[in-house]
């Protein structure tokens, strides 16, 4: 109920009576005798209800009503009318008067009017309350909505972050799909140490912990508000990194590596903490996968039938595969040139060096020497390894051992080439033979014994040379079985010496036979070994002829023995050989004699000696001379003899 009420009437009696009645009803009553006075009081005390006469001097009731409603439309105005003022009463209702009562005022009617006014006031207040409450409600609900949206946003950030991390990892390890399932529990925490957002994996594995304490997932000593990584981050303001154990949904415990990062507001205060826990069992599984993968690559690297090396700018070996290490046995950090040619000098056309210079893959073919002393033809491919800036930091070299292919190719091409290269020689020999036959024939015609003898010597000599050449040819045409027999070493050696000695003496080169008289016998295909040794002796002769630095030259042909072998030694003081010539001289078509050499001689010699299971060793110093040591077994191995019987 309203507490204050204003009575406006020009008749004092009515004001007094009404004041008494209304005071009895419990109102605080104010009075005014005209409209102007009333407006002043309203301004002062703002009565919720105004009771006013219509007919008054100065300002009548209707005028007052309009002004009150203009100032405060919620003020309830009750009009007091005389008889016959019905038109005015209706007019006042149009102007939002609450009610009207007629004079003489009956208390019942007054109370009804007041009740109506009070009802309106109450209703209006309730309405206002409702309205204001509704606004609160809306505000309250909106706040909840905002919070919910914020949580969703946090969740999205977390998921986005973890998927971004996944992407980064994928980019880094492109092709390795293991990392697609990055085992990371990501969560965000507020300063109350509550989880406010997690990623999907967190939810799946550790449960929906939103709203729970940050420490609840931990099984270890970190399971308290102060000690958990998030708590520590809030208390120290620094990101944490430690190993912990978390409780899985199924009750088991997982080892994790936890990282936290503080997220600060504008004032620099830590507002949120980002926690990332990586599942170490997953990580170690991935590490194992990676290791397996690496091992598989290493296996491939090692099992590939090639030599792989990685070299740096100084051409030092940084890595090499097993096969390379087996065949060349090099330490990391040593030079490839030492491995391949043993001279330690980088090869002038080194493909690795060229790759560094030009930044492109190179190809080359060369002959290298393994640690066993064997010669390999290798086809080399290189590939530059570049850093981010595009500079070549290392070069990978892949060498394929193509010795067998080359041998096959050598064999195929050798026939044609051989015929070409020695047909000239054959023609010369045939002409010489013609010469001998002519001498012989003219000797018979003239019955000149001297001519016959001369002619026959020439014929015999030429036939011998043609025979040797034919044997060479046979060696290329097909694998020729050894026609071995027990042979007296000294007789054999003397025969070989005889083929070279006259030529040596003809050039004033001393020829020394240093034979062990007790050498005995050995099992040999005398014909072919003779040509092999002759070849070596003729090379010694050529080495002396080419050397202008010494006044006198000497060739020593030695024969000695040990328990199992007969050893033939050919040494000269000719020009000698450099390392490269020494290593390549047994390869087909390698010649140090320019157009004079066919590149066949020592290749054949070596084959012949190897076919007997013998060996050749060469020592040479440029400018000082060379020494060939040929070891031949006294008794041929059974498999060679068996092969022959087949």
């Amino acid at each position, binding site marked *: 109920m309203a507490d204050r009420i204003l009575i406006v009437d020009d008749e004092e009696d009515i004001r007094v009576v009404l004041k008494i009645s209304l005071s009895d009803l419990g109102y605080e009553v104010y009075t005014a005798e005209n409209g102007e006075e009333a407006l002043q009081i309203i301004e002062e005390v703002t009565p919720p209800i105004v009771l006013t006469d219509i007919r008054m001097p100065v300002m009548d009731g209707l005028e007052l009503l309009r002004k009150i409603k203009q100032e405060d439309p919620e003020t309830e105005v009750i009009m007091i009318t005389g008889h016959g003022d019905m038109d005015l009463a209706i007019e006042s209702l149009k102007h939002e008067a609450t009610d009207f009562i007629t004079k003489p005022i009956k208390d019942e009617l007054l109370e009804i009017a007041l009740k109506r006014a009070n009802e309106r006031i109450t209703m209006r207040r309730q309405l206002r309350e409702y309205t204001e409450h509704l606004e609160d409600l809306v505000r309250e609900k909106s706040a909840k909505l905002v919070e919910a949206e914020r949580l969703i946003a946090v969740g999205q950030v977390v998921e986005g972050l973890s998927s971004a991390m996944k992407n980064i990892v994928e980019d880094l390890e492109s092709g390795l799909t293991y990392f697609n399932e990055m085992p990371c529990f990501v969560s965000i925490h507020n300063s109350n140490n509550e989880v406010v957002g997690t990623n999907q994996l967190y939810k799946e594995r550790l449960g929906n912990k939103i709203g729970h304490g940050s420490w609840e997932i931990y099984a270890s000593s970190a399971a308290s508000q102060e000690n958990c990584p998030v708590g520590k981050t809030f208390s120290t303001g620094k990101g944490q990194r430690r190993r912990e154990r978390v409780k899985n949904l199924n009750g088991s415990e997982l080892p994790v590596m936890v990282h936290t990062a503080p997220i600060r507001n504008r004032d620099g205060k830590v507002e949120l903490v980002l926690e990332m826990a990586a599942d170490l069992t997953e990580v170690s599984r991935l590490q194992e996968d990676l290791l397996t993968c690496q091992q598989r690559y290493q296996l491939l690297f090692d099992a590939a039938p090639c030599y792989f090396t990685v070299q740096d700018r100084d051409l030092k070996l940084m890595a090499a595969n097993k096969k390379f290490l087996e065949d060349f046995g090099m330490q990391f950090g040593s030079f490839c040139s030492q491995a391949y040619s043993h001279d330690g000098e980088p090869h002038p056309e080194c493909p690795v060096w060229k790759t560094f210079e030009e930044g492109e893959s190179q190809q080359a073919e060369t002959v290298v020497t393994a640690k066993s002393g064997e010669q390999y033809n290798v086809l080399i491919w290189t590939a530059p390894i570049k850093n981010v800036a595009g500079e070549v930091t290392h070069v990978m070299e892949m060498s394929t051992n193509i010795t067998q292919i080359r041998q096959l190719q050598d064999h195929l091409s050798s026939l044609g080439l051989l015929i070409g290269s020695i*047909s*000239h*020689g*054959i*023609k*010369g*020999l*045939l*002409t*010489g*033979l*013609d*010469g*001998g036959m*002519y*001498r012989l024939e*003219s000797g018979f015609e003239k019955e000149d014994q001297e001519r016959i003898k001369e002619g026959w010597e*020439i014929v015999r*000599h*030429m036939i011998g040379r043609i025979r040797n050449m034919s044997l060479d040819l046979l060696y290329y045409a097909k694998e020729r079985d050894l026609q071995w027999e027990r042979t007296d070493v000294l007789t054999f050696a003397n025969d070989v010496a005889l083929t070279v000695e006259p030529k040596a003496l003809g050039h004033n080169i001393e020829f020394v036979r240093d034979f062990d008289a007790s050498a005995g016998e050995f099992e040999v295909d005398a014909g072919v070994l003779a040509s092999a040794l002759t070849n070596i002796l003729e090379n010694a002769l050529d080495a002396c002829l080419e050397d202008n630095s010494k006044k006198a030259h000497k060739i020593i042909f030695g024969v000695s023995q040990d328990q199992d072998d007969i050893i033939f030694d050919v040494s000269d003081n000719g020009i000698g050989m450099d390392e490269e010539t020494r290593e390549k001289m047994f390869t087909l078509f390698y010649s140090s004699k320019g157009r*004079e050499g066919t590149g066949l001689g020592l290749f054949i010699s070596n084959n012949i000696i190897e076919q007997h299971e013998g060996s050749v060793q060469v020592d040479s110093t440029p400018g000082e001379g060379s020494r060939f040591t040929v070891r031949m077994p006294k008794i041929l191995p059974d498999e060679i003899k068996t092969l022959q019987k087949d």
Partner: protein
Amino acid sequence: MAKKILVVDDDPNVVYYLVGLFHDNGYETCAAHNAPEAFDMLQKEKPDLITLDIDMPEVTGPQFYRKYTKMDDLKDIPVIIISGLAKPHLAVKKAVAVVEKPFDRDQLLKIVKDTIGE
């Protein structure tokens, strides 16, 4: 007076054969086993004919030919190429004849006779 033939070949067996053959057929001969030797012999002996091998070490037959044909007093001496190479006729274009080793000795003697007479 017997005509004189200079035999140039690095193969001593071939030299021996040719010298014997020409000698038996009434020619005078001289011989050289390489180009420098042949050049000395050429100036000393002034032969009427040269038989020349192509493939010799150091200085080849054609190189020797080009050298002596630049000298006025020697350039008209006729030359017969006797070689084991596959296409010897390409090496010395002005040669009287080109004979491939091994050669038919009657054919060679006929070429010699046609060039310088008996």
